[in-house]
């Protein structure tokens, strides 16, 4: 801990509490409290340990689950026999995770367990992610876990190996950024719209070099699910991580979770968590403010997550851009997306709907989508509408609330948990030239499949697009 008593931010306090050794060159050896592992970025890391004859230092602080490659269609047949994973490379990555976690004594949530799900849904819902902890995972959307007041960020394979072996990382502290959103949110405006508004305001590179803290009345009043959505997309604004200060909402969410502190530990933990909030008078390196009243339901038009317009808006005209490089990029984007400048967003018809991903696959997301789907049916031109719960526990809860029936009666497919159509690493892909209204986080070229066209939006907006067959203002449906 620093002995300096000057006011500190939440980020600074968590950082200070985890420095094992500070070096003269500005790097610090930082202790890692929680390491989440999945099948894509871990095999070479485990191999490295094996080659060097090393162990996992703290298997008790490490938790593994498969999500990227796993199929979201049935995993067992009628007789309860496991169905094979068709792609041999996916099957091999999944098998390697089972082999490696067994060999190194790391806890693995197996594919048929109710607790299986997307790693960034599983961590919080298990209470594995706690306020004031450092959380890493070999995946850029690890930023999600900041919703609970944890310092959470994605790392590469070499770093995964470094954490497995030493439970530490060598890092330089980032600059601090306050993103303050105050005021009431309008009708139809969800945490996803807040996230998209922030990415649009900062731009896709605007957060580079920063760790963001989300402050203001909007976040104080927002649920943990909503905070997870916003922190998840910190990475789309280029930030290393994003956090929301822990408060009573956080504690209520965590209390009773399987891995949350129990009994006497709980009270001690809450007292410590309360002490983490940013001190009055602490300063951030940069401050960005957004008036919540200006946020409306949003949708992306291009191939970068900051290509955001109001659903009532039009496709922007590249000719209006003065910077030739930006103009060329926008023209290329529109050509790829099959859109023309000036086209109304609400006239854009869609082929596929994807409700899911680490951004929007939690119970509140499914409730919001189901509220729109209820008593309606997907439009004739929609080829496929997927609903993919973020975990088996989310799926169970949704089924207990009857949401699965609402979706199925409306023509949606109700799937098994996983990353699914977010990133084209499993069978759920958007075919070339087709357009998808997606609750995921990236609309990059080819992200949902080679030649796929993605419009990012909220779960309610995705459901609205499903029932009308085109991008639609949810406020006109609800």
């Amino acid at each position, binding site marked *: 801990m620093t002995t300096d008593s000057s006011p500190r931010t939440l980020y600074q306090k968590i950082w200070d*509490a*985890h420095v*094992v*050794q500070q070096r003269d060159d500005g790097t610090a*050896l930082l*202790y890692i*409290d*929680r390491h989440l592992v999945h099948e894509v970025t871990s*095999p*070479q890391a485990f*191999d*490295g340990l094996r*080659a*060097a004859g*090393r162990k996992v*230092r*703290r298997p*008790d*602080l490490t*938790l593994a689950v498969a999500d990227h490659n796993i199929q979201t269609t049935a995993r067992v047949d009628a007789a309860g026999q496991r169905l094979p994973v068709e792609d041999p*490379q996916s099957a*091999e*990555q999944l098998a*390697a995770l089972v082999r490696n976690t067994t060999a190194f004594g790391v*806890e693995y949530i197996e594919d048929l367990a109710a607790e299986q799900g997307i790693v960034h849904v599983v961590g919080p819902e*298990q*209470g*594995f992610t*706690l306020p*004031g*902890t450092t959380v890493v995972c070999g995946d850029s959307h690890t930023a999600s876990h900041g919703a609970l007041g944890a310092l959470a960020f994605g790392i*590469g*394979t*070499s770093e995964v*190996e*470094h954490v497995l*072996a*030493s*439970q*530490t990382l*060598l890092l330089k502290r980032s600059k601090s950024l306050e993103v303050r959103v105050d005021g009431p949110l309008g009708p139809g405006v969800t945490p996803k719209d807040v996230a998209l508004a922030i990415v649009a305001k900062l731009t896709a590179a605007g957060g580079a070099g920063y760790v963001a803290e989300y402050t203001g009345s909007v976040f104080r009043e927002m649920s943990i699910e909503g905070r997870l959505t916003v922190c998840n997309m910190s990475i789309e604004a280029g930030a290393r991580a994003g956090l929301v200060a822990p408060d009573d909402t956080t504690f209520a969410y965590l209390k009773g979770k*399987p*891995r*949350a*502190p*129990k009994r006497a*530990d*709980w009270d*001690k*933990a809450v007292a*410590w968590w309360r002490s983490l909030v940013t001190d009055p008078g602490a300063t951030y390196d940069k401050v960005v403010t957004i008036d919540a009243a200006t946020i409306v339901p949003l949708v992306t038009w291009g191939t970068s997550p900051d290509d955001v317009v109001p659903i009532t808006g039009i496709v922007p005209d590249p000719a209006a851009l003065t910077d030739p490089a930006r103009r060329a990029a926008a023209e290329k984007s529109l050509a790829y997306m099959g859109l023309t400048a000036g086209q109304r967003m609400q006239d854009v018809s869609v082929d596929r709907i994807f409700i899911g991903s680490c951004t929007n696959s939690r119970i509140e997301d499914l409730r919001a989508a189901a509220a729109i789907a209820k008593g309606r049916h997907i439009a004739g031109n929609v080829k496929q509408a997927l609903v993919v719960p973020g975990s088996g526990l989310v799926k169970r809860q949704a089924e207990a609330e009857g949401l699965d029936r609402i979706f199925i009666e409306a023509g949606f497919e109700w799937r098994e948990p996983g990353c699914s159509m977010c990133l084209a690493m499993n069978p759920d892909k958007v075919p070339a030239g087709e357009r998808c209204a997606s609750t995921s986080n990236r609309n990059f070229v080819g992200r949902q499949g080679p030649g796929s066209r993605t419009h990012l939006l909220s779960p309610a907006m995705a459901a609205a697009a499903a029932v009308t067959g085109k991008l639609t203002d949810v406020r006109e449906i609800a």
Partner: protein
Amino acid sequence: MRAIDTIEGKAYPLGRPNIDTDIIIPAHWLKTVTREGLGKGAFETIRAEPGNVFDDPAYAGAPILIAGDNYGCGSSREHAAWAMADMGIRAVIAPGFSDIHSGNAFKNGILTVVLPQEQVDRLLEVAKELPIAIDLESQTVTTPYQDRFRFEIDPFRKDCLLKGLDEIGITLQLDDAIAAHEAKAHRETPWVEGAARAA
């Protein structure tokens, strides 16, 4: 990681500038589960050229690669270093390297030697006929013709390579400090480790 003292042997006389990591290992090799075996895909596009140095039996199994300026530019993929290590390359000599690739090479125990273009050209000539030697302790590259070229290297990296320590090995030398932090966390925030496993 294998310690480096002297690396002596044949050298692939490649000598081209701006070899990017996509040339070192093409993207379609990235969906693997091991670091091993990537050597098969290393320099795939160059190996498609008739008479290329990598398939020339004269250089089979060479531990040294001599390349042109800006070696390892482009994507940051660590697979490039893995692929080189897998094909047995332990050192690369070039007039310059991309920062990221040079870091990845170091992480994987590959020595990157920077020498002026004219000395690299001389080594390219010699390597076509005879073995060359790199001595890390004295920071020199020598040839059977009595050429002796001195190179600079970051003292920290030199020390790590001489001792065969990778970044993880170095961190693990700080075991006392890590254990001290764990003891403090155990006292001050006991619920952190206590709660990680489901009750």
